[in-house]
């Protein structure tokens, strides 16, 4: 369980993981207004250097953003949340849900000229399953046991038990060239070779990574506008750790796109020649989670907190309006998100209900000092979050003020993410504000399946519901099963969902058709630059 536990975590950059997803409606397809022209360099910034560009050896979000341009994958996830053909032309799932047979498209070549065939696919997954590789993303393959390649176009995946998140989780596994892995050995992660629209160009240690266009690329994805090779000749990722320096470089015209700092969104949007592109239905979930200690184990306490949080105000102030209040225990971009359902079972801002919930749970202010007591003792609690992200610390301070109003005395404290997990596991952290980026419904298993990612969960009834959701392969039925889990979580107030923050980029106006796909990944193959 610890494996999955490590998935979510912190705030964008260094954290983890591929954004997996089964998002339904993340973006409105960009309508091409002019005829695309080829050529030009697309200059952007990354806040730090990725560790590797080898999908078997990294789980950084940052690395996966770059790797998405270099590698193709077996399938992609469409706007309907269903897998669509990419490198795999088609596939068949066995009756018992234990075998998936992919038909691999013929004629796809890696950048080094070798063939991407079933044997290469087998090589890729064998490599990740091999314990010697110690692939950080191995857990995403779930119950996958083996891959066979009976012929050049057939890859057979065998599972020990039905594993519904498999298709979405494939996002983490771009297909690498086996020949190149053998050639480069240990240093493959710095000399990546795939079959994607962009080829690895150069890596100037510490300062930039350059990708060049693959002139022979054929795009089989139907969610893109462009079917042929990319329009831009080059992508340059400049390493700039300081966000204000990124913005300065962008405004000085030295970059074409940056991930927009919230503090500057409004100002940049109002600046001539610059647009903000937003993905509001993101796969981000920000929530308050609880330990199994007193008073947090007390359901009334958790319900009171859930009622007392002013989500609108948090989205408005802490996120400067760049987030959507969320009552669901699942990201807004997720296929299973259902605002109506969550409004019915969830907790909207209501201080009276919050106070009543506290009173029902035995929290009363009998000595009149404005602070409620439990068993005669003032309730003094600490709300934690991780550093050094301003938005986390801002949010906990707003929640602190909210909770003061219902008679809870709350301290706030931030701690480096690295130091946080052990504290969560020992229960030293009573409740905390957490953020996970995760697009598949299995986010719920990752968070809550006993003992949960914090080691604080022990709920056999919930485990049973989660088991059903994870082994139901049919998408519709799976959403239904996930809803049962969500209702259970809300009824017991296991977490208090707060907001889903948006993914936002600032783009210069001469950059066209910049967009994300259903899994919140950039599709730079469509981007073109006018003069």
């Amino acid at each position, binding site marked *: 369980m*610890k*494996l*999955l536990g*490590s*998935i979510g*975590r912190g705030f964008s950059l*260094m*954290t*983890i993981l591929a954004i997996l997803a089964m998002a339904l409606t993340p973006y409105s397809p960009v309508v091409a207004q002019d005829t695309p022209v080829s050529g030009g360099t697309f200059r952007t910034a990354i806040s*730090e*250097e990725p*560790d*590797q560009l080898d999908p078997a*050896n990294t*789980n950084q979000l940052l690395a996966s953003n770059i790797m998405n341009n270099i590698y193709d994958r077996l399938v992609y996830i469409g706007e309907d949340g269903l897998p669509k053909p990419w490198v795999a032309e088609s596939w068949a799932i066995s009756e018992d849900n234990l075998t998936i047979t992919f038909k691999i498209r013929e004629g796809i070549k890696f950048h080094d000229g070798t063939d991407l065939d079933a044997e290469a696919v087998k090589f890729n997954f064998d490599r990740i399953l091999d*314990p010697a590789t*110690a692939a*950080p*993303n*191995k*857990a995403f393959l779930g119950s996958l046991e083996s891959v066979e390649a009976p012929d050049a176009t057939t890859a057979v995946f065998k599972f020990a038990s039905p594993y519904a998140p498999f298709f979405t989780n494939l996002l983490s596994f771009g297909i690498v060239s086996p020949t190149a892995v053998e050639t480069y050995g*240990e240093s493959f*992660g*710095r000399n990546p070779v795939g079959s994607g629209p962009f080829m690895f160009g150069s890596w100037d*240690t*510490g*300062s930039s990574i350059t990708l060049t266009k693959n002139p022979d690329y054929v795009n089989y994805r139907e969610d893109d506008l462009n079917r042929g090779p990319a329009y831009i000749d080059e992508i340059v990722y*400049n*390493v*700039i*750790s*300081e966000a*204000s*320096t990124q913005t*300065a*470089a962008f*405004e*000085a015209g*030295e*970059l074409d796109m940056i991930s927009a700092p919230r503090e500057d969104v409004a100002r940049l949007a109002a600046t001539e020649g610059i647009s903000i592109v937003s993905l509001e239905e993101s796969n981000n979930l920000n929530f308050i989670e609880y330990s199994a200690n007193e008073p947090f184990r007390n359901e009334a306490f958790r319900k009171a907190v859930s009622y007392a949080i002013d989500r609108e105000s948090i989205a408005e102030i802490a996120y400067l309006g760049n987030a959507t209040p969320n009552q669901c225990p699942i990201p807004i971009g997720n296929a299973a998100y259902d605002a109506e359902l969550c409004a019915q079972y969830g907790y909207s801002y209501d201080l009276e209900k919050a106070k009543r919930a506290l009173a029902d749970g035995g929290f009363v202010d009998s000595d009149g000092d404005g602070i409620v007591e439990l068993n005669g003792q003032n309730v003094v609690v600490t709300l934690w979050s991780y550093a050094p992200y301003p938005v986390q610390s801002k949010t906990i301070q707003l929640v602190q003020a909210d909770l003061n109003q219902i008679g809870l005395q709350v301290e706030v404290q931030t701690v480096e*993410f*690295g130091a946080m*997990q052990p504290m969560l596991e020992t229960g030293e952290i009573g409740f905390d504000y957490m953020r996970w980026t995760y697009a598949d419904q299995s986010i719920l298993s990752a968070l809550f399946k006993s003992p949960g990612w914090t080691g604080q969960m022990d709920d056999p009834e919930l485990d049973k519901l989660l088991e059903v959701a994870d082994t139901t392969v049919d998408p519709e039925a799976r959403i239904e099963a996930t809803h049962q889990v969500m209702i259970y979580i809300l009824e017991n107030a296991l977490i208090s969902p707060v907001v889903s923050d948006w993914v936002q980029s600032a783009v210069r106006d001469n950059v066209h058709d910049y967009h994300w796909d259903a899994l919140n990944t950039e599709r730079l193959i469509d981007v073109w630059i006018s003069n």
Partner: protein
Amino acid sequence: MLRFLLRRVVMMIPVWFAILTLVFLMRALVPGDPVEIMFFGRASSPEVVENMRHQLGLDQPLYRQYFTYVGNVLQGDLGTSITTKRPVVDEILDRYPATLQLALASLTVSVVVGLVAGILAALYKDSAIDTLAMAFSIAGLSMPAFWFGLLMIYFFSVKLGWFSVIPDGSLKSLVLPALTLGLIASSIVARLVRSAMLEVLGQDYIRTARSKGLSEPRIMTGHAIRNALLPIVTIVGLQFGGLLSGAFIIEAVFAWHGIGELGVQAFAKRDFPLTQGIVLVIASSYVLVNLVVDVLYAMLDPRVSLS
């Protein structure tokens, strides 16, 4: 001369070993298991952790680890970075030239500005020039470097557009970071030059020169400045260390990809082989620069006997 040099180098060896030992202990004294810390938040099984401990030699007793470490360092092996999985030596060599370049450029700025301001202040002691130079100097000493750096970028790159924000490897992109670090450092140089000059100006031989009727400019260039330069050599050596540490703050602000930026990231990620490597390399450079300064000083100062 050779013997003097040799003695200095020999004296340096125990100091360097002590540094090496401290750097080694740095990791050993870290509370918590470094492997646990570094795997933190990544999917890992107990075997993987055990494997890594073995690979890093952490399952050995401390004294064995120490000898292995010293042996490796002496062979030029600083270990492998945990985050990038590249040899630490490579990581440092990739970054070191950029930091050196910045440190030298800042040093030049600080020495030129500091000398001019210090000499002028001393010559025109108690005049408006003196007051101004010293006010400027003390202001520089009081400036938070990161704030100054942010303001520099804002005015010169964004507002005026004179310099690019992203360094492109040209001399021009060196200007802003070197000015930021150099101007701050020049405050100290200016103060010390001023007092060194004042001291020299009060010496007998200057009075003698004056009484012999030598012209003021000749006295200045021929005696005063040359003699005042001596202590400045020492200052420059000390400054160098300050500039290397300034890099830790300034590099991130200017997207300058030197060892300081690398260091901040390595510290933040607890990449201990890299952290140790950086600390060792910087401390060693500092010791080396001070050696050079000592030798220079001895060569320049007739009063220090070389034998």
